[in-house]
């Protein structure tokens, strides 16, 4: 089937099986390889993109379900003010180790801050727990989200004295 999908502000035409997940459309048909394959079943979040601004697991999103939805991927996220702030905070705090999950982390974090500019630690937990970081850079991911939000980035969760 032929589909016209809206990716990073551009209409792109692809010939694909209706069931083909957006992840593989991006990676193998459109050569946008920043979005990563981790589990194929929406358990890890490495494939997260934005669908009309909402964080979405592209590995379980068939191309036929997209319609005229506006899709944003890691390649274009720094083009939004929130995405740019998140990217800059990620680099400033040297968040990544292997980096494989980080596109998905940045997409989830950008979606969180676009909706909730000053998230609490609990808000961060809720928004980010679908994204596995196998290197466990969670300490810095949390700090970078706070930095991007213009909040103090020190971790103050352990309070007993």
């Amino acid at each position, binding site marked *: 089937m032929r589909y016209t999908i809206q990716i990073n502000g551009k209409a792109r035409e692809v010939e694909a099986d209706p069931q083909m997940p957006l992840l593989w459309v991006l990676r193998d048909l459109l050569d946008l*390889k920043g979005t990563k394959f981790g589990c194929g079943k929406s358990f890890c979040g490495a494939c997260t993109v934005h669908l009309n601004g909402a964080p979405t697991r592209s590995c379980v999103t068939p191309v036929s379900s997209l319609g005229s939805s506006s899709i944003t991927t890691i390649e274009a996220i720094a083009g939004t003010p929130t995405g740019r702030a998140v990217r800059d905070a990620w680099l*400033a705090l*040297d968040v990544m180790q292997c980096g494989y999950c980080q596109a998905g982390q940045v997409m989830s974090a950008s979606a969180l801050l676009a909706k909730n500019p000053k998230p609490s630690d609990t808000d961060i937990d809720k928004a980010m727990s679908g994204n596995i970081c196998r290197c466990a850079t969670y300490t*810095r991911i949390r700090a970078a989200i706070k930095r991007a939000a213009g909040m103090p980035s020190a971790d103050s969760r352990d309070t*007993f004295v």
Partner: protein
Amino acid sequence: MMRANKTESRRAFLRAGVALGGGLLLDFSLPCVLNARENASSSPSTLNAFVQIANDGAVTIISKNPEIGQGIKTMLPMLIAEELDVDWADVHIEQALSDPAKYGAQFAGGSRATPLNWEALRRVGAAGRQMLVSAAAQTWSVPAAECETASGKVVHVPSKRSLSYGRLASKAATLPAPDLAQVPLKDPKNFKIIGKPHPGIDSPRVLAGEPLFGIDVAVPGMLHAVFVKSPVFGGTAVKANLDAIKSQPGVRDAFIVGGGPVFNGLASGVAIVGTNWWQLDRARELLEVTWDEGATASQSTEGFASQAATLSSQAPAIKVVSDGDVISALGSSARTLQAAYSYPFISHATLEPQNCTAHFHDGKVEIWAPTQNPDPGRKIVAKTLGLNDADITIHMIRCGGGFGRRLMNDYMVEAAWISKQAGAPIKLLWNRQDDMQHDFYRPAGFHFFKAGLDAGGKLQAFSDHFVSFGENGKAAPSADMSANEFPAKFVPHLELGISLMPLGVPTGPLRAPGSNALAYVFQSFIDEIAHAAGQDPLQYRIDLLGERRQVGAFDTGRMIDVLALVREKSGWGKRTPPKGSGMGVAFYYSHLGYFAEVVHATVGAGGKITVDKVWVAVGVGSQIINPTGAENQVQGAALDGISEALGQTITLNKGRVAQSNFNDFLLLRMNQAPPVEVHFLKTEHPPTGLGEPALPPVIPALCNALFAATGVRVRSLPIDPKLFA
């Protein structure tokens, strides 16, 4: 069987490297470093295998080791750039090809990059600097001793003349190479790059979505491949419905590969090759294979546990250490304890599934591999395909995680074989289930401890019967225990012994191999001993370490100092945890690093475990080369250990791995990740590695905290919340 002194243990091997001290260079062969210069008149000019300088002053530094997320592509060039005396902003870093004749050993393992390269690569930079100084001195006809360098320039101090490295490079490249062992190194107090935080060099490219990982590789004419292996390890494919598969959309070919049964080589299976990986992955759902499952189709996790229990009542088959007279000492002890501990198989679960791109053509293979250890892969590929090592070119591609999985190169030989048979370059990609069910697992283990205390609570007698895996007196990979396992040599009457069960499952190194399991059982049982003695568990450990001294390569003073540091930083003994909450401590020496860690954890309703905070005290020597990377590694390793303790298990049923994805193999997530506070204790010892040694002690520290919180011991991993419900 008595194994008098297991000197070939991993740690002993590492120590041998460091014992050379200043002679580390001997261990780090750079056979052709100084002969790799060619085209001296062209730009850029090649000063040695690692350094090129262009006429405009741009410096290219080659990073020789695989990047798996440990930050090595940034850190190794820092060592060269420091001594070359250039500004980091002028440095461009390139990843080396796998070429050990040119670069020396190229691998990511054993936390060895720092001890092996700390001095060696600084000397490479210093040699380049010396050649540039000589070139300037000759140009000005002045003594080299009157010249200094800074920021990519040579300055003649008396006349204040200066020349940029770019202007000097082509002349320098024609000069004789200095003796690496003789080149002077900077006084550390003059370091400008080492010791300052340098963020990952490729991080901006990752966040721009550039195709940097193995899975992103694309070469002209490339096809995709999936490879379906027997669910029982070592099984072989007998027949399959290949014609039906070949008729599926996107499929070009499907064939049986008759490999096996070696684990780290070509396995038997069915390859499906075509134009679109997702279509191939879908086609495999229709695949019907008749497998010869082989001899291990009946093994199970439950079977191993009952076998271990039976073996525990017998004497260990292998005596690793036998000091004093444990039986008599236990008999005369004022108090005795015994406990059985166990831990499961676990998977590496790199987030990037195993993959490799290979192109067989004209009797040669070009390979693009996310690998931690390319050279053994080259040898397996050459042997399997009947080629010479020199016919195999390996590009080391950034790895989406390693953790030891990519020390094995099974995916590399699979890709090469499939490319040869398909007659095209192919990218082989495993799906998550392939990856989880065809790993080289951290071996499970069973430990049966006894201890005897005197009336004052002092540890008099200690024994461990470790029921592990292996055959013919030889432990399976990463399933061994050395004669140096603490508290060996610290207790007058002590026995460590091993019994082995045959195993048909591939095992291998997982981050801090051996240590990631042994730390848990030994440091937990020592905690039991401290509590039985009625003493503070942290102070009890310091007392057990005793006088500050060397015990073999182990420096008790360094461990006492990190214990004291973590006591101070965590407020140990000074803070009162609320009800249901406790603090636990553990230490461990591995990979030449001294680590003491405290965990604060809380048990809530229904046994719900919250890890509140982790404190890590780190003793890795005189210099933290890249502080931002170092802290990140330590925090990640500590959280990785918590992840193993809370959720990770691989179980076997009918010879098959039961888990298949992240819904049943549980990795730590954001809502479970506590703050991790890291404190580096600077000492006068040479710097050592950080990728691994922070992991082992966090697991027992967590379990000991849960005991402090609840009075319940965690004697089996992963931690079962039902224990506390």
